[in-house]
């Protein structure tokens, strides 16, 4: 895993995460909804911000499968790998 990708994702989640302590100590296993306490409506905004930050396009189905920070990292790394290929 690219550490930079991870911290960029945490930075993006920052305004939306109600549990700031959980965000500080977030791991790949942290759930956006349950652990970071992001409201479900705002997941859409996190995906949009990810698209902008990494210059990628995320399909609805891919977005629906993002539950944890690790899911987001894997999705972005997959997208970036495809873009680089």
């Amino acid at each position, binding site marked *: 895993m690219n550490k930079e990708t991870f911290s960029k994702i945490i930075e993006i989640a920052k305004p939306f995460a109600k549990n700031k302590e959980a965000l500080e100590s977030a791991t790949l296993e942290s759930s956006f909804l349950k652990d970071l306490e992001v409201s479900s409506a705002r997941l859409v*905004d996190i995906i*949009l911000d990810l698209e902008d930050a990494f210059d990628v396009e995320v399909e609805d189905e891919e977005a629906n499968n993002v539950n944890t920070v690790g899911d987001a990292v894997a999705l972005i790394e997959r997208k970036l790998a495809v873009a680089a290929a």
Partner: protein
Amino acid sequence: MLDQTEQVKKRVVVTGLGVVAPNGHGVNDFERALRAGISGIRKVPELEKLNFRCQVGGVPEGIDEKLSSYFTEEDLLAMNQAMIFGAIASIDAWRDGGLSVPERNSDEVHWDTGCVLGSGLSGIDTIASRLVPMINACKVRRMGSSIVEQTMASSISAKLSGLLALGNQVTSNSSACNTGTEAIHDGFYHIRNGQAERMLVGGAEASSPYVWGGFDSMRVLNASSNEAPEKASRPMSATAGGFVPGSGAGVLLLENLESARQRGAKIYAELLSAKVNCGGHRNGGSMTAPNSESVVRCIQSAVEEAGVKTQEIDAINGHLTATMADPLELRNWSRALEVTPEQLPYIQSTKSLIGHCLGAAGSIEAVATVLELQGGFFHGSVNCEDLHPEVESFANRIVQRTVEKPLRLIAKASFGFGDVNGCLLFKKWD
């Protein structure tokens, strides 16, 4: 639980005030500005750039610097200006009423507290800056999650209910320039009928060319004072040339008397009565002009409901916008109270200092009215040294310089597009 079968009408008192006005944020600054006749009307460069006829307006100052003390970063990503003004005035009124803002992670809900917070043109800045351009550019997918909550007609009340954990009726009303006064009316009856213990009530309006443009194109804004902003809002003046657009929010914390007493709350005033009606666009009334018959009925029914004699009314905070309707308004007051012009209670226009704050006007002016009762003063209406010839007979009753004088009973009225009227009677709390 409240006993909803109880037939006794509850007495309703004002226990908190919040205001975001062009000439002051917070009751202390606002009262100081009213007493000193400080205008909140300034040049708005954006209006000049956009080729508006009227290039001055009333815009609250210094709000951006205070946002982080009221809201989280996430709140602000989903709040437009009317929501921000409305929430700040509401939180201020809540704290002024001796109540504390609940922790976000607490599950406690105030089941007996609700709100009616309206606006004239809700969400129009969000609609103009994001919704329309993004949809037209085929970018609906990229609009994000917060468009609905900022454009729905209930945007202001919906946000506030979350900030303060309100559990009673939470709604937003709209009746053009009568909105703020109508919100107070609606909350008043909700408490009076025993449906809630306390209600945050009022209106908010954004400072936006998209809110003001329609009025500019109607030619009802003053276009002749762009280089002298503080002189631009001229209610009752011979040289009144239309109103000056304003913005902000005014919120009152209304509460039933028992509840206020039980918790030892500071009581500013009692709201004796509140009435709204409509002229039905008949008898000279139209979308934009008042049916005098309905104005008179509205004021008289408020006086009757209050159980006071017209002679007991010490003063009037008028609607008085600086259009051709001002002389008619004064004649209507005189007819409604059945007094000659020389006998009319003192009258003032708060709009002379802050412009016409549209959906927020009635409630900001109601805050001014309550502060006057409590503080024993009546602020001057500026910019009418040259009284309109048709109001000359009222000259001694139009207060042009602030008077320090204990007042007991003040009537506040608002009138709006759609031929709607609202009248409130506030009594000083002894």
